């Protein structure tokens, strides 16, 4: 009888904990085999379930914007690889348009800088960009802290995450970083192919695409992160309306004119349109640019100074390969959804 009660109690505890947990698994940051050491210093921001959930809540809560209208997720939806799909230029508060296409969010622990111009130097301070931008959230961190302080439930959550119910700018940013750093994508067909796992069987076309990719794209979009974190001019003519010179705005060095961050290609098939200003709607347009559209200039990437010769078949193969970078486990991971919790 005693044992029966114990077993029942145990079962109840299991049910309750999994019920309260929204079916979440343990919070664990994974460094996949063969990947480099992360850039982000995880030892200074210990990942906890409470911190991750608080970060997730903040990410999905429009309370971060000045008028409570716009959340991070507004321009970074999970199923598109956390970007603003189908919008060449992302828009924020009052429907105001920015001057750039929002970047995808994945594997940020390996980023050495953030934003298309690399103006932001650490994952933890990255959210300050959109929070303060006048066409994105048009707010200040001071005001975010004030608003959260009077909002229902936040003080308790900050206490649970950081042992302090006094909300500070530092803790807002640390919580967001905990959520953002967990957005890891390493289970695409490509990854399974590399790991020789079931589901990683590539077609002949995809394998041909991989070879073409390694011959033509690998220098900047190097595996496994598909970016070398550098800034490059890939021969895109400057938009005469936006007049965006990219990296030069940060470094004030004319050598950096028209250079933009090399974006990761993970989930690229889901994250259209493409380029810093979203000028290309399809991957085929991107292929056409690399084969026929390069505009020469003093800062043009050396790799692109020789023409990239791609036949129509090559382009299809390359696109077939790029589609193997779509990671459905990541795009539909329940942990990253808006739980309204």
């Amino acid at each position: 009888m005693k044992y029966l009660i114990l077993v029942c109690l145990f079962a109840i505890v299991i049910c309750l904990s999994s019920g309260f947990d929204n079916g979440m698994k343990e919070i664990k940051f994974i460094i996949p085999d063969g990947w480099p050491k992360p850039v982000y210093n995880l030892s200074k921001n210990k990942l906890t379930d409470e911190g991750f959930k608080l970060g997730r809540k903040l990410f999905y809560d429009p309370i971060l914007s000045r008028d409570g209208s716009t959340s991070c997720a507004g321009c970074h939806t999970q199923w598109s690889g956390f970007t603003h799909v189908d919008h060449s230029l992302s828009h924020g508060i009052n429907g105001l348009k920015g001057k750039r296409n929002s970047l995808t969010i994945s594997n940020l622990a390996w980023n050495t800088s953030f934003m298309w111009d690399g103006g932001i130097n650490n994952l933890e301070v990255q959210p300050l960009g959109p929070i303060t931008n006048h066409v994105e959230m048009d707010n200040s961190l001071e005001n975010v802290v004030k608003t959260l302080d009077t909002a229902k439930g936040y003080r308790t959550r900050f206490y649970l995450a950081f042992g302090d119910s006094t909300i500070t700018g530092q803790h807002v940013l640390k919580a967001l970083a905990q959520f953002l750093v967990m957005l890891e994508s390493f289970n695409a067909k490509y990854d399974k192919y590399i790991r020789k796992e079931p589901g990683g069987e590539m077609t002949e076309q995809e394998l041909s695409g991989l070879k073409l990719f390694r011959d033509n794209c690998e220098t900047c979009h190097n595996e496994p992160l598909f970016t070398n974190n550098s800034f490059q001019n890939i021969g895109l003519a400057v938009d005469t309306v936006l007049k965006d010179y990219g990296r030069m705005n940060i470094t004030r060095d004319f050598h950096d004119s028209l250079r933009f961050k090399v974006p990761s290609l993970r989930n690229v098939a889901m994250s259209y349109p493409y380029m810093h200003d979203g000028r290309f709607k399809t991957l085929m347009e991107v292929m056409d640019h690399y084969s026929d559209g390069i505009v020469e200039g003093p800062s043009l990437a050396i790799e692109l100074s020789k023409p990239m010769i791609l036949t129509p078949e090559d382009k299809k193969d390359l696109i077939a390969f790029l589609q193997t970078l779509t990671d459905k486990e990541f795009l539909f991971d329940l942990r990253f959804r808006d739980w309204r919790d």
Partner: protein
Amino acid sequence: MRLMHLFLLLFFYLLPCIGYAQAGTDWVLTPADTDKVEIDIRATFNGNTLVPGKKAYVNAHGDTFYVDAFRFYITNFAFAGSEVVNGHCIRGMFECDSGETHLYDLLDTNTYSFVLKKIPPAVYRDFTFTIGIDSFKNTSGANGGDLDPTKGMYWAWNSGYIMAKLEGHSKVCKTLHNAFEFHIGGYMPPNDASRRVSLPIPEYFEVGRPSMPTITLNADIAAWFNGIDLSKVNSILTPGKEAMMMADNYAKMFTIESVDFTPLNAR
């Protein structure tokens, strides 16, 4: 085991006292008040206490102006001097570093003074500190306390701290509300706007007595206007050459006004 702990504790508490007994001093040490130095900061213009808002000042160029905001980071303190042993100063430099970070804000009197801790007993002759934030703290993510990005001293679009900020207005500025704004920052060479400042301490200055010594620093904003014509230079908001020029100016704004040894209980 417990006894061992007690012995160890006693030993470490008594150790400093033994040292001082040897030095031939007759005062009783209490560990709490012997390793601290209070720093008071007085913002001035040409030696007169700076008043924000309605008080008019005239700079070297002859422009009349008013001050609306004045803030700066003061960090990485170091003292250099001679260690005292047996009542005598030992030759040679003795240095100590304090990684404290302090944000001075003219509009917040609570920031006018602060205490440096863990300064070893010695006779010090030089006081050194940095105006601004070093590159490590500029790249280490979200910091807390005075470095919290809510303090209005952090740039969002191009990461990094504003090392020092002076805002005001003057009729010669043909800007919105006649405002001038100097937000000086940048941590990457060649545009690192932090400045190391070393000041000789004018009087005998010993740390380690029962009373906490105080150094009063004078931050004279007149230095900011060296070579500045407000009608032409009235907005510096990004790292670069102009910010570097202003950083060279504010590096010269400090002097040690006084050194005070009044015992704590007599204040």
